[in-house]
């Protein structure tokens, strides 16, 4: 190991640690599910019960939210990585379907954040 090897490792490790902190910075008492697809976002409370179909470049992707967990039940992509990712239920976990551009993550709900306000 040479001098710049240590420097390279320090840089890589510090960026990795930084990314961990930014991932857990949004913590809260209750959890919510964030789904991104085609540039749009859907946010649901973790205790929702729903089945939603998303349309992407590869075809259809179906996401199921039930019993405080989320999973991809079906997707028209070639590798099926998203379906094989299984069920997620903890904060910070995520599933992505890259070919069909669908991303799901569970995050903490910010206190006092409202879905919308009407005056």
């Amino acid at each position, binding site marked *: *190991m040479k001098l710049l090897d240590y420097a390279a*490792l320090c840089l*890589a490790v510090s960026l990795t640690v930084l*990314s961990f902190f930014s*991932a857990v910075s949004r913590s809260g008492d209750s959890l919510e599910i964030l789904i991104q697809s085609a540039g749009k976002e859907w946010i649901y409370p973790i205790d929702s019960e729903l089945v939603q179909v998303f349309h992407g470049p590869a075809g259809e992707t179906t996401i199921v939210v039930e019993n405080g967990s989320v999973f991809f039940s079906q997707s028209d992509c070639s*590798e099926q990585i998203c379906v094989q990712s299984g069920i997620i239920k903890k904060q910070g976990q995520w*599933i992505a379907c890259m070919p069909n551009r669908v991303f799901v993550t569970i995050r903490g709900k910010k206190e006092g954040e409202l879905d919308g306000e009407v005056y």
Partner: protein
Amino acid sequence: MVKSTDKLKLTSFLGGLCLFLSAIEYLFPRPVPFMRLGLANLPVLFALKLLPFPYVLLLILLKITGQGLISGTLASYVFLFSAAGSFTSAVVMYSVYRIPAKFISLIGVSVLGALTGNIIQLILSVKFIFGDSAWVIASLFLTIGTVSSFLIGLFAVRFMKRSQWISSLEGPL
């Protein structure tokens, strides 16, 4: 002077090695198509020492084509991600490799190469595929990249020191 056919032969051999390592890599589960262990980076590290830069770029082309063929993503935009990551990382690794060997070894070269390739792919996936919330994938992505690129660099250093094959190539090339 070395004949350019010898360099081409070595490039194609290393390309074949990339293809083989990509197949091995495919055995490991991964959460998104471009999140790889980076085993196929090993022949690229050898190439930095053995081949001139244009041949290194040719090897990268062989590497990403092989990875695309094996994972079935050759005809999709996932291939472009792979290309962007691999070429940036190759340029960075080649530039860093120019630094005198008393300051840096292939370990640092490998770690920096993986880091830049990964960051480029992260930025592309956040900007063009998923959206801002996808930054949460960064922690897993960078952890895998840092650990595996360190181990691959370590292996490359040991291998380069002891391999008779490498020392036989260093003479004529």
